[in-house]
């Protein structure tokens, strides 16, 4: 009998074991939901699957009466656009500042303490100032994402840029490269796959900030819808929305991982 630490489940066992807890969760939900609906048929907290199905049908496949839009898709589009812009800008800033502070000692001395300081400020606590600075338009919604994740991205990429072996920087110089060329041909390309990892790590927070921003000022978006129907405790809408957000988050993460493997084989080959 092998020690537990040496025992590997087979393919089928891996799948079965992986799905088991989800199945259990489902059963627990069904039981709890049934019990509550038994006690109060109008209970909204843990709706039956049929109720959620109706809600999905309504949100995704029937045009809304207010705007004639299919709400789920309109919300998804709005939220994904914001997420893309916010994460995109953050990634860009993370890349630029991460490379600059990671590569140039003078830039690091000047900017690192500020970035560390800013990364510790909880953005939700200074909302009024943020909104004054950035208004309440689309910019503000993505701004919260940017402020929320950029310091992390910068610090992570700065770290990664510093981890590039000194040997390679020296090698570049012996090949005649100046500072700009070192950044352009050594640091930047090597940071790119690490940027993708960092973005993957920060996506959870990005979603949180997006949902928070949409609850404050927006007229569509996944977070807005959840905020809006929360006042009526419409869990039949909220739960599918949450599931949908989770799926989207998973899909984005998966796609980024795939892209990175495809685009930067040298990074994944040597790690």
């Amino acid at each position, binding site marked *: 009998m092998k020690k537990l630490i040496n025992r590997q489940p087979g393919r089928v066992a891996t799948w079965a074991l992986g799905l088991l807890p989800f199945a259990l969760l489902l059963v627990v939900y069904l039981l709890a939901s049934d019990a509550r609906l038994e006690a*109060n048929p*109008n209970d*909204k*907290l843990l709706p039956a699957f049929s109720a959620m199905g109706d809600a999905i049908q309504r949100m995704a496949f029937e045009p*809304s*009466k*207010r705007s004639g839009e299919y709400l789920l898709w309109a919300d998804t589009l709005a939220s994904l656009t914001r997420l893309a812009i916010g994460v995109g800008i953050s990634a860009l800033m993370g890349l630029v500042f991460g490379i600059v502070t990671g590569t140039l000692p003078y830039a690091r001395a000047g900017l690192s303490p500020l970035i560390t300081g800013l990364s510790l400020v909880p953005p939700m606590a200074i*909302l*009024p100032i943020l*909104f*004054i600075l950035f*208004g*309440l338009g689309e910019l503000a919604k993505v701004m919260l994402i940017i402020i929320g994740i950029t310091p992390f991205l910068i610090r992570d990429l700065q770290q990664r840029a510093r981890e590039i072996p000194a040997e390679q920087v020296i090698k570049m110089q012996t090949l005649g490269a100046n500072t700009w060329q070192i950044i352009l041909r050594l640091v930047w390309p090597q940071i790119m796959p690490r940027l993708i990892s960092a973005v993957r790590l920060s996506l959870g927070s990005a979603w949180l900030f997006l949902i928070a921003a949409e*609850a*404050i*000022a*927006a*007229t569509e978006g996944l977070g*807005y819808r959840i*905020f*809006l*129907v*929360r*006042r*009526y*405790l*419409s869990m039949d809408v909220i739960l599918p929305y949450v599931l949908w957000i989770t799926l989207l988050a998973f899909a984005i993460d998966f796609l980024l991982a795939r892209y990175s493997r495809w685009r930067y084989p040298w990074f994944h080959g040597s790690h």
Partner: protein
Amino acid sequence: QAQARDSFKVCWSIYVGWLPWDYGAAEGIVDKWADKYDIDIEVVQINDYIESINQYTAGQFDGCTMTNMDALTIPAAGGVDSTALIVGDFSNGNDGIVLKDADNLEAIKGRRVNLVELSVSHYLLARALDSVGLSERDITVVNTADADLVSAFNTSDVTALATWNPLLGTIKESPEANLVFDSSSIPGEIIDLMVVNTDTLKANPALGKALTGAWYEIMGHLDDSGFRQHLANVAATDLDGLRMQLDATRLFDQAEEAVAFTNSPALKDTMQKVAEFSFDHGLLGEGAPDAGFVGVATPAGVYGNSGNIKLRFDPTYMTMAAEGEL
């Protein structure tokens, strides 16, 4: 000191008394009136009520919807001279106090009461306690975010709460909920306003005219089914839900009624009660020596410090609407 301008921004948040602004914006009524006075008015929806007032106070908006109490404690106490341009309605059951396992208000004694601290719910609670000879010392106030009140009520930790519609309506649907007090017992004290910056209004009477004109045209659609359906959709409810909310609201759909309400001496008394409550809770700022520190001008006279008037109930534009001069 404000400049004459021709483009303005006003904001509103999702509450039954202010939902008509979205109808007005969506149906072009606001634009129509703005064009009439050669200005632009942008109507912006902000979901977070407090943030909308903060932004107005910080000068990001020229006008904003808010209650009389918040108008006093946020912009006015913050030194932003504000005018209640339109007195839209008062709460007549839209705010209420709910208890579990008891159907009389006295039973609230000793409980933890969940509500949005320092909001009109808090004021309502103070007035309610007053009415049964209790004070805030007899209970514990637990500050709870409005968005979370409904789900909070489902937990056993919560046995008493004060809130407004539509949250109140949702909570009342629960079999455990007993409404023990609501704003219909203090009619006219919780007032929903469209507040604009006084300086901006002085420099740009057109803004006041356009907003007021638009509002009463919108009010003219009150009984249209399209109007009601629109409001219900925006509020993410159905027609019944909307009717429930409207029934608890004393909407002044005729300008005359609003003018009469504003002119009545009761308004001054109400504002005194509100100011005293606010002062007791430190809402007028640490520098405030007494409840009358921030002056409130009403047609019936000034309450408090007439040298520091920052909130003005001015029926001028509503009167113009009533007399068809817009």
